[in-house]
């Protein structure tokens, strides 16, 4: 019989909430995590607002030793370790230190960069002939797989320990990769998720491309406007999301809390052919990714209760809605509910897929649809495609059975994953 994969733990470090309870409260109540960023203003960015998680010294010391925090300067690893360990703890998995690693548990924890601030600090030292004074942790903090390496050591993981990287689909892709690893019988448990560094050195490239909004520097909470006619670019964000994927038998044997079942999904690329480029999606591939996810999971499109979109608040939001509608063959009142977490947290880049997937699973588990904020003025191309009631602006309490989450990224890459209420 085909194995089944369930989610037994969640962890989150988001701009609007650190820890599952805070985050659940924030998404239910439409609480924004977007704030004015003094450093971006000083550096004369066009966009001077951002989504940055608040990490207190007390939280840091809870997850890292004093020695690890010496000369530590990697927000990506900081967020990823906190989210990853929260998920592990939430799943009721042990922290004791044994002689042997846990051969059945691994991690695929994605990132776009690692320790970009540490990298900058090091480059200044190197150019100042101070290479010998770098210390021993520059490699661990700046290698892309730093986050999975830190987690692997803290949790004693003995299965695959790796980091995937595929722009803004990274987090969603990590779930699919962990799912595959369990389905193929190679692991019982996979900690999956992704993280993104914070700060000017990660966000500058987007600011230079003029894809971030410059119109809300004095109204940060209004800045991230997915699906709105007045959307003027995304707000850069950061953070990390994590989940424990577990083979059903193992979860049942441990009597673990089961948040939801992962039915699988699909990841593909538009090959930067047709209308696809490095930065623009090939709609044929986007639709194929969604349809192949349904095919893989054996679902009909009318079984979907909620879509958690990519929807970044750029001019491409309308195209995304049109693609969803075409892929599912559903429009107007027939279209499922849809929301975008980015109105509350901005675009968390390599972390977006996992932060948003954690939100999707929470909505499924607790039976609610989180409100979209800042889209009171829906884009006319969107309201011409789907009924405006399908984009809730207020919290809806509703039993959900199927939630589908998609992410799209630079390089013309797509990923789509399907979550089902566990029965």
């Amino acid at each position, binding site marked *: 019989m085909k194995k089944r994969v369930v989610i037994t733990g969640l962890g989150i470090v988001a701009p609007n909430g650190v820890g599952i309870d805070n985050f659940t409260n924030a998404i239910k109540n439409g609480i924004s995590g977007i704030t004015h960023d003094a450093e971006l203003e000083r550096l004369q960015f066009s966009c001077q607002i951002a989504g940055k998680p608040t990490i207190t010294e007390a939280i840091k010391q809870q997850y890292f030793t*004093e*020695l690890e925090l*010496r000369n530590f300067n990697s927000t990506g690893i900081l967020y990823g370790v906190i989210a990853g360990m929260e998920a592990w703890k939430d799943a009721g998995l042990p922290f004791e230190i044994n002689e042997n690693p846990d051969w059945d548990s691994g991690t695929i924890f994605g990132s776009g960069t690692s320790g970009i601030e540490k990298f900058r600090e090091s480059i200044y030292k190197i150019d100042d002939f101070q290479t010998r*004074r770098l*210390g*021993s*942790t520059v490699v661990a903090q700046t290698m892309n797989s730093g986050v999975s390496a830190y987690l692997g050591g803290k949790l004693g993981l003995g299965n695959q320990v790796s980091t995937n990287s595929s722009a803004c689909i990274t987090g969603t892709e990590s779930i699919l990769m962990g799912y595959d690893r369990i389905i193929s019988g190679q692991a019982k448990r996979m900690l999956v998720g992704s993280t993104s560094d914070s700060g000017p050195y990660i966000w500058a490239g987007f600011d230079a491309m003029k894809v971030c909004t410059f119109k809300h520097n004095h109204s940060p909470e209004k800045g991230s406007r997915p699906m709105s006619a007045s959307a003027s670019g995304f707000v850069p964000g950061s953070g990390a999301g994590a989940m424990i994927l577990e083979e059903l038998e193992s979860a049942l044997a441990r009597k673990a809390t089961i948040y939801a079942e992962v039915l699988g999904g699909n990841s593909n690329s538009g090959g930067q052919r047709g209308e696809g480029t490095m930065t623009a999606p090939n709609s044929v591939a986007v639709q194929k990714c969604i349809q192949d996810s349904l095919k893989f999971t054996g679902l009909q499109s009318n079984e979907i209760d909620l879509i958690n979109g990519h929807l970044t608040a750029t001019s491409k939001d309308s195209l995304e809605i049109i693609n969803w509608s075409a892929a599912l063959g559903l429009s107007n009142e027939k279209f499922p509910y849809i929301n975008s977490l980015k109105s509350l947290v901005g675009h968390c880049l390599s972390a977006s897929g996992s932060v948003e997937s954690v939100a999707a699973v929470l909505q499924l588990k607790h039976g609610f649809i989180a409100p979209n904020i800042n889209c009171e003025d829906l884009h006319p191309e969107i309201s011409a495609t789907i009924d405006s009631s399908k984009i809730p602006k207020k919290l809806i309490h509703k039993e959900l059975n199927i939630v589908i989450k998609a992410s799209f990224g630079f390089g013309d890459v797509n990923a789509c994953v399907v979550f089902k209420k566990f029965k």
Partner: protein
Amino acid sequence: MNKLEIIDQLKTVVKPYIKNQEAFDNLSETTDFINDLKINSANLVDVILDIEEVFDIVIDNASMEKMLDVKSTLAIIETKLAEK
């Protein structure tokens, strides 16, 4: 600075890196950084950077290689301090 004072300063420097408290409490000239104090070998360069800072000396690569226990480290610190 006499030897006891140097050892005292050295103890403060290595303290954050040690994994064996008992060996640290009984630190003597024969204490080995890796085998006794269980300092992660990658951290030895951090220990040496901290020593440079605390004693305001510069330790060359050749000396660095020898600094695996308290005795040899003391000798190198004393030499470098005398050169100042």
